[in-house]
């Protein structure tokens, strides 16, 4: 597949050939189910004529059905473009196809989508990861040049790792959430999933910047990172030692190889420890579900999407929501309602807010000594469909990705090798807030050294 960097140099007529070729490939590889259109047997959604970029089904594109992978949003048509969509259009790119996702971005396998399963292109028995599993599978399967995903607790980095792509979550506030279907507003960020680090930097530069219609968008001038990428910079990189110990043997082995490679590149490696990741998981599931219970209260069958028939308004709310939401979404709404309800608020929600400060401070402490942090993306490689039937077990597969969202920091998942079954393994670099230049420079150094 042509890279995004190369595609940006193509003349107009070649772009239209590229779009036609992609449509043919998407049709041929229908069994992967990376795009919602592959699962619903509809023509690929289009808007504009630029270089095609696959868009997660929770990012608004005018005139498209944008459903967050949910039954409750069937029939909804997006009335405006998300800021990231306007930004890509301004730069010669165009939204092309809706990628499959876990319903409302709540999941780590894309199994909870209303439309059905997305398969991992490296092994069709395995999940692509989630929640941006469709975006990662589209890029990994040669069905997209690049894609946009969203990351609330790892939903860009984890599927990128499972599918062998590069996935990047920007600093909270760097990319506007205007037009992103809200799951957990203080954690959600849109970011790129691409074939290589440089493409990720290019796409990140295109979507980043202040948006006055988004009160959580950082009001600072965006300094482009793609133009000054420097893989020759030498940095201090902190490896989280106890996280290595928690990973599977094969993930650990590839991480150790990658650390050696980074050292050979001239980076200084230091070893530090984090608190047990179970506290990150606990903090995340309190805060994310609390915010989700509030955000998802807007789906009531009145204004958009699916309405269940009833003569009684309250009954209509209840039926529309009970029929429209899938099981995992209902579970998280109930949990979020619980932690915010009177009598439990202090013991759960307030405690989690305090823990969030603690987690952020832990990162700040390490960043006094290092420019970057290096850790695995996932404890294992992609798992098989249906292998994690217990919700808590699924939550525990996110141990390395969640704390970064809680701290608001940027991170990138870079392929560092494959396991004995040929499944990709990802390594994760993290930088200080707004230090995306450090992040991409380090990622490029790692990528180059492993080639």
């Amino acid at each position, binding site marked *: 597949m042509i890279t995004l960097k190369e595609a940006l140099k193509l003349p107009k007529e070649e772009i239209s050939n590229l779009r036609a070729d992609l449509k043919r490939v998407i049709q041929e590889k229908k069994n992967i189910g990376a795009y919602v259109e592959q699962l619903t047997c509809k023509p690929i959604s289009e808007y504009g004529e630029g270089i095609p970029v696959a868009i997660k089904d929770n990012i608004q594109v005018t005139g498209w059905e944008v459903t967050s992978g949910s039954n409750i949003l069937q029939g909804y048509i*997006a*009335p405006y473009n998300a800021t990231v969509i306007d930004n890509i259009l301004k730069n010669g790119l165009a939204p092309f196809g809706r990628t499959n996702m876990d319903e409302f971005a709540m999941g780590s396998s894309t199994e909870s989508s209303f439309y059905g399963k997305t398969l991992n292109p490296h092994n069709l028995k395995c999940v692509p990861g989630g929640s941006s599993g469709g975006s990662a599978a589209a890029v990994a399967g040669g069905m997209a040049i690049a894609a946009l995903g969203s990351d609330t607790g790892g939903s860009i980095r984890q599927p990128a790792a499972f599918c062998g792509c590069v996935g990047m979550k920007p600093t909270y506030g760097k990319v506007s959430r205007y037009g992103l279907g809200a799951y957990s507003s203080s954690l959600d960020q849109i970011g790129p999933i691409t074939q290589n680090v440089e493409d990720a930097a290019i796409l990140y530069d295109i979507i980043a910047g202040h948006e006055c219609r988004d009160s959580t968008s950082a009001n600072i001038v965006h300094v482009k990172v793609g133009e000054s990428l420097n893989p020759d910079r030498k940095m201090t990189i902190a490896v989280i030692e106890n996280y290595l110990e928690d990973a599977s043997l094969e993930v650990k082995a590839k991480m150790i190889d990658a650390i050696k490679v980074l050292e050979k590149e001239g980076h200084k490696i230091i070893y530090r420890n984090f608190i047990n990741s179970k506290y990150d998981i606990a903090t995340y*599931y309190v805060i994310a579900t609390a915010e989700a219970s509030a955000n998802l209260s807007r789906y009531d069958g009145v204004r958009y999407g699916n309405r269940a028939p009833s003569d009684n308004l309250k009954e209509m709310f209840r039926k529309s929501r009970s029929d429209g939401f899938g099981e995992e979404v209902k579970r998280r709404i109930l949990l979020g309602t*619980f932690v915010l309800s009177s009598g439990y608020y202090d013991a759960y929600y307030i405690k989690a807010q305090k*823990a969030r400060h603690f987690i952020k401070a832990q990162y700040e402490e390490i960043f006094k000594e290092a420019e970057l942090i290096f850790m695995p993306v996932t404890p294992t490689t992609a798992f098989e469909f249906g292998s994690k039937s217990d919700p808590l077990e699924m939550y525990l597969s996110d141990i390395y990705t969640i704390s970064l969202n809680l701290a608001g920091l940027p991170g990138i998942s870079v392929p560092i090798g494959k396991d004995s079954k040929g499944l990709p393994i990802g390594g994760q670099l993290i930088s200080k807030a707004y230090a995306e230049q450090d992040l991409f420079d380090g990622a490029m150094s790692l990528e180059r050294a492993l080639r």
Partner: protein
Amino acid sequence: MKIDNALLQKLENLSSLKISNEKREDVIKQLSEIVEFVENLGEMDLDNEETTFTTIAGGTPLREDIPNVNPNIIQTILANAPLSENSFFVVPKIIE
């Protein structure tokens, strides 16, 4: 703590959801497991941490209150709403 049927009923009411009879036992078990898991936060020493967390340095920005309506958005939403009439959303009768 254990979530019981009475608490689940309260949560269903608060969130306008109804868990079917055949799913109740499973949901109660899963929620109890998750709640027990998140209680590990009690092991952390958090007495000196702040109780509110903000992602935006300097607080939420203020702007002038200028009316800003895009008629296309209104039109698209109304045209695709479950039920609408004369620029209103229609819902089941509230007052007899």
